[in-house]
């Protein structure tokens, strides 16, 4: 109690800023934008935590990381302990410390937030996780419990699959992950750009999951190479579906099949997974637009716009049909994009994409919009202003309107229940589907959401699978 009072009296209400690359410089490179805390900064920020007994931050975290405890260990300069606490609940902390929307989760719940600025939990998480990656030799040896003799197949190596696999391995089950692409990591590899989440960080976390004894089979498209039923018949006691939401939505407006129109999935996959930004050193090309329009207002739209800029576009627009307030992207990412020079066209909706005589994009005709009454999502519905059409001069258009789950697994699996949005029906608490011995979690169940919510779902499903297997 006394210690708490003492801490309170000295509290710095402002969080320690995290250094970032200069916007003018970073707009032309793929290096990480946010540079992370130094030890001094991390300790100063950790000291701000008042170690309040209610621990609201923990309930704000989808995987319930013991936040005050890891911050305390960090403050006490006991780094191995901080790592142990963090990894006890979160198998991928270096990723979460970078891409979690902490401002709507743990940090929103932080007691300090009521006074002024919440503890920068995400930045501290990143600091501890990066320390761990840099000090692998100081890691305690991985203790794999004796084998239970049970085998689990995990389909998809994104955040849900990796988390489920790590937890299942820690329970002593033999886990095989099947990944369709040539690299493990799912959206962390193909979707989120290098400058926001370095691929070496992702691969280090994948290596950690492998070190727990998890086998990862790449180049394996389940539903084609083997069906879920075949997996259950032949080798596995249970299957977890973590196949994500990988199917791109298009505009359904004239001109969307013109050359120069990309889905955000294609654009980002070419840049991130295939490293088209290093063409011709890497073989995969990408069209570098002079003027690029990215349609959408989410994090994926911000990522695509900032990639287009780094590829060398002169002008990059975000075209969004509502206003700034309704944008689903993280505030931090919008700010980063603006600093780098992305031009925001709010209350603007494409009518059609115009092509030249060779089938290439040469412009986009748009409507001006205004906000009407709130719709089902609670956001004010954008309404077209009649006669407001105007042209934007662009040669590349990236459609970032969202994604839906890939139908391959539901279409080839008997007895799975799906919704009209293509998502797989699963129990929210356990991830259990209506099909015997099959669980699901992450975007395939919720539709496109966050990395951490997928991890939470993977964790809960792993616990439920373990309970089932050990019955």
């Amino acid at each position: 109690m006394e210690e708490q009072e003492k801490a309170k009296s000295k509290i710095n209400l402002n969080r320690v800023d995290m250094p970032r690359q200069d916007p003018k410089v970073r707009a032309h490179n793929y290096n990480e934008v946010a540079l992370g805390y130094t030890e001094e900064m991390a300790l100063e920020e950790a000291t701000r935590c008042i170690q309040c007994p209610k621990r609201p931050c923990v309930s704000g975290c989808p995987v319930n990381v013991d936040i005050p405890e890891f911050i305390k260990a960090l403050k006490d300069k006991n780094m191995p302990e901080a790592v142990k606490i963090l990894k006890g609940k979160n198998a991928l902390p270096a990723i979460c410390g970078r891409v979690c929307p902490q401002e709507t989760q743990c940090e929103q719940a932080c007691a300090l937030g009521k006074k002024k600025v919440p503890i920068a939990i995400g930045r501290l998480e990143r600091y501890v996780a990066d320390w761990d990656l840099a000090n692998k030799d100081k890691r305690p040896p991985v203790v794999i419990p004796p084998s239970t003799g049970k085998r689990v197949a995990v389909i998809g190596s994104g955040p849900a699959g990796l988390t489920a696999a790590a937890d299942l391995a820690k329970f002593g089950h033999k886990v095989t992950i099947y990944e369709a692409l040539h690299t493990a990591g799912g959206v962390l590899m193909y979707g989120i750009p290098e400058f926001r989440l370095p691929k070496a960080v992702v691969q280090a976390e994948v290596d950690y999951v492998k070190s727990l004894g998890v086998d990862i089979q790449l180049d394996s498209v389940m539903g084609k190479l083997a069906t879920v039923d075949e997996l259950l018949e032949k080798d596995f006691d249970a299957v977890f579906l973590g196949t994500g939401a990988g199917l791109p939505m298009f505009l359904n407006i004239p001109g969307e099949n013109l050359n120069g129109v990309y889905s955000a999935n294609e654009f980002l996959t070419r840049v991130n997974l295939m490293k088209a930004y290093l063409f011709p050193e890497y073989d995969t090309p990408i069209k570098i637009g002079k003027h690029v329009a990215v349609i959408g207002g989410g994090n994926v739209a911000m990522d695509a716009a900032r990639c287009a800029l780094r590829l060398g576009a002169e002008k990059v627009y975000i075209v969004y049909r509502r206003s700034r307030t309704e944008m689903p992207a993280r505030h931090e990412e919008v700010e980063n994009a603006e600093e780098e020079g992305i031009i925001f066209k709010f209350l603007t909706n494409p009518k059609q994409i115009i092509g030249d005589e060779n089938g290439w994009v040469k412009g986009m005709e748009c409507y001006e919009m205004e906000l009407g009454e709130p719709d089902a999502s609670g956001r004010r519905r954008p309404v077209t202003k009649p006669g407001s059409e105007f042209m934007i001069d662009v040669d590349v258009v990236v459609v970032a309107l969202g994604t839906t789950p890939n139908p391959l697994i539901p279409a080839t699996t008997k007895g799975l229940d799906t919704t009209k949005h293509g998502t797989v029906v699963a129990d929210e608490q356990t991830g259990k589907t209506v099909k015997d011995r099959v669980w699901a979690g992450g975007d395939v169940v919720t539709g496109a959401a966050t990395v951490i919510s997928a991890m939470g779902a993977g964790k809960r499903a792993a616990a439920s699978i373990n309970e089932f297997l050990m019955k």
Partner: protein
Amino acid sequence: MYKIVSKELLTPVIDCLKIQAPALAAKARPGQFVIIRVDEVGERIPLTLADWDAKEGTITLVAMRVGTSTHKLGSLKAGENLTNLVGPLGLPSEIEKFGTVVMVGGGVGIAPVHPIARALKQEGNKVISIIGSRNKDLLFWEDKMRAVSDELIVTTDDGSYGRKGLVTEPLKEILEKGGVNRVVAIGPAIMMKFCSLTTKPFNVPTVVSLNSIMVDGTGMCGCCRLSVGGQTKFACVDGPEFNGHEVDWNIVFDRQKVYLKEEKESLKKWESCQCGKS
């Protein structure tokens, strides 16, 4: 890594590789394709299966050296490895007893036609095959096609072998005789378009296989999208086979041209790196 069991040159620019891939071979069906990546910096490209052997655990790919990836593929030797191989992808061909089917294979398209013709023949269809190439040197698998066909017609553009002319000429003659229930045409897009135009007045169902530019091959990127019957379709998951009469061919041709400039640049770089290598 996927081991190359054997490799032969079918023509000076067309390679045939047998690759170890037991799980894939066990599942492969006529008309399906795979995605390959030759090396760590390579592009992901689709190739329609030319053959497979479930017992032996191998698949066979036939590719013409056009761009960087197919040149790299051609430079691999038996015993070496392909970095990535994914499949079987796409929907298999419809194999049932249609009656009389005409198979048209143009150039490197002869390879994917072969397993489809074989399956249709096994199903009890009368199979009439037309295979064509620019000249005698570019023709391959005449014997294999003859073995699965009731009748085989060979054409070359320059008349250096078989009948001089395009595959659409004998196709039209056969259609005029009547009794054809189905046509399957695989080859260059322009050939598939003209085969579809040839069969249209006869109202004979015509299947074409569209191997457009792809990245993942599982429906994730939409790079391979086409317009078929006025609707946007993905070649990778809705195809690769489509009704040739409903395909918007202009979009097919346009989309083939997206990376022409980059493909040239990439190939030039690869070729310059090969100088001095044996």
